[in-house]
């Protein structure tokens, strides 16, 4: 099955929308969305659009959370009403740092603070808490009509704890994480959000293994892999053509390097490769 077909199947499987929606829900769904100018356009010339799922992966200390915070700051700055929901499982996000990044995008400290006030932070201390929070978000999508971006840091914070706890009751962690992936795909689709999620490298040397499962991996439209290299970080972006793309897909692989400074991410040279 091609990546595009897998994504279509994944979205249909995850969609458990009720039969009929209220007028409020319909308006929230059909309202035009502001353009989500994002740091990810540094990696490729195409802005993420509602429904896109971006995954940032890499080893510890490679800059995943910093890149995620750049996306959050860019989303909060693109419009005076845009809102972001950040699901924090790792506790690596720092608000003073976010404010610093916002001040780079916005003309004044007051504007940066006003943008920060549109960030809803959900701090989860367990996998169950995180998943219940996502269900709450799904249940109240019409109340979150202004939310452009759902940021998750990270998808793998509780993996080993879950694997141990589920193993004790005879269950498998892959089913749990497959359901988590389905929740995020439903949010991206029904909520017309961009989902940006970080994921730690959980296993050294294991190629192709993804703890979220094949369905999630197929639903991801942009995969950013970070690798520390010679004082900088090499980011490799792989794009999957979206289901609604009519034009031929662009070159699907970009490599770019960046460093993290006090002002935020600073991009170095860009190079587009074809697969």
């Amino acid at each position, binding site marked *: 099955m091609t990546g595009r077909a897998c994504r279509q199947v994944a979205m249909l499987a995850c969609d*458990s929308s009720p039969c009929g929606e209220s007028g409020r829900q319909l308006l929230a769904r059909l309202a035009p969305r502001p353009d989500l100018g994002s740091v990810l356009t540094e990696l490729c010339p195409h802005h993420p659009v509602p429904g896109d799922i971006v995954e940032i992966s890499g080893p*510890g200390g490679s800059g995943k959370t910093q890149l995620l915070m750049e996306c959050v700051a860019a989303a909060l700055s693109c419009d005076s009403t845009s809102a972001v929901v950040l699901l924090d499982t790792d506790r690596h996000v720092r608000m003073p740092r*976010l404010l610093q990044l916002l001040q780079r995008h916005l003309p004044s400290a007051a504007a940066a*603070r006003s943008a920060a006030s549109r960030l809803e932070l959900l701090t989860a201390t367990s996998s*169950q*808490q995180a998943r*219940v*929070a996502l269900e709450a978000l799904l249940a109240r999508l019409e109340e979150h009509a202004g939310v452009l971006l759902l940021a998750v840091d990270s998808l793998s914070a509780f993996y080993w704890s879950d*694997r*141990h706890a589920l193993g004790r009751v005879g269950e498998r962690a892959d089913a749990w994480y497959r359901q988590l992936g389905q929740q995020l795909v439903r949010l991206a689709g029904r909520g017309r959000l961009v989902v940006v999620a970080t994921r730690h490298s959980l296993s050294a040397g294991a190629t192709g293994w993804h703890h979220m499962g094949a369905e999630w991996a197929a639903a991801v439209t942009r995969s950013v892999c970070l690798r520390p290299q010679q004082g900088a970080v090499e980011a490799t972006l792989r794009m999957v053509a979206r289901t609604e793309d009519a034009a031929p897909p662009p070159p699907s692989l970009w490599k770019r390097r960046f460093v993290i400074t006090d002002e935020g991410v600073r991009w170095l040279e860009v190079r587009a490769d074809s697969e």
Partner: protein
Amino acid sequence: MHQYLKNKECPLLSEDVLAELKNNGIKTVLAFLSRDSEALIHACSLTYQEVVSVKKVLFAKYSALPCSATDLLDQPSVAPLASGCDRVDGLLGGGLPAGDLVELCGPSAVGKTQLCLAWAAAALLAGARVLVADAKCEFSVDRCRRFLRRRGRSAQECDRLLERLQYAQVFSMQELLALLEAVRSRRRLHAGLRLLVVDSLAALAAPLLASPGFIGFGLLTDVGTTLKSVAAECRLTALVTNDLVQSEPGGGERPALGLAWLHVPHHRLLLSRETSTAPGPLAQPPRAGPRRTATLAKSISAPCGTSADFLVTDAGVEEAPIAQKRSAPED
């Protein structure tokens, strides 16, 4: 992991309703919340409004805690905890940051426990409380007392300061988790706690990592999550020590406890010690050990790769004299 539906969650969840839900495969809180309300009224005898009410109660109880970014920005800041060695403190932006998990990583006898002692003494001198979870029985309160005495405190003052140091021996990950949960749940009892030391996490966790069923990695993740939660909620610094292991035959060294732990700490200081014991040309304080180096290997807020040399003396941790290059002998 799975929170099962129980009558105590909400009075509307009677035993009959729970039995009906169970017959339809809905046994857990998450299973209930992930079903549409229309589907749930067909699975049990609750009305639509009752299902919505039960969902509200469950969301309030089990969802992640929401807060606004501006509330966090408005929290009063807590000054970093300085050890007394400006160069080492400078690696972390002035000292141990409140709310963060800091890891000291290095081989045996490099000075990890000494640095913990120095920061503990600094916290006591600043009027704060310290909790030490000692897994190796190497944490010397007497040495901490000597650090305080060398800072000019009288014997009586040292006794009074040491009353604010709470010492606990822990011999298992489960005991450590119980201690951390006690700190979190009884915050009033631990008011003023500024530093929580775990020496050493490797001693507790390493024996479990090879156990079947991923119990070691699971407990390690639980400890990491709890340490970060306690640090954030109590506005303290959690300071843990860890060993270094060979990453692969012929390869470099890396922190112990595997990939499961590598991403957990907010900051990681790698410690090393000079191996030469011959007296060098640099004047060092008397009764000082060999020169040691701390390198910032990971940080969420400071540039990595910076390092600082320090010495461990009777007064605590002090800056090492700056190394001068030997000039080449003239022909």
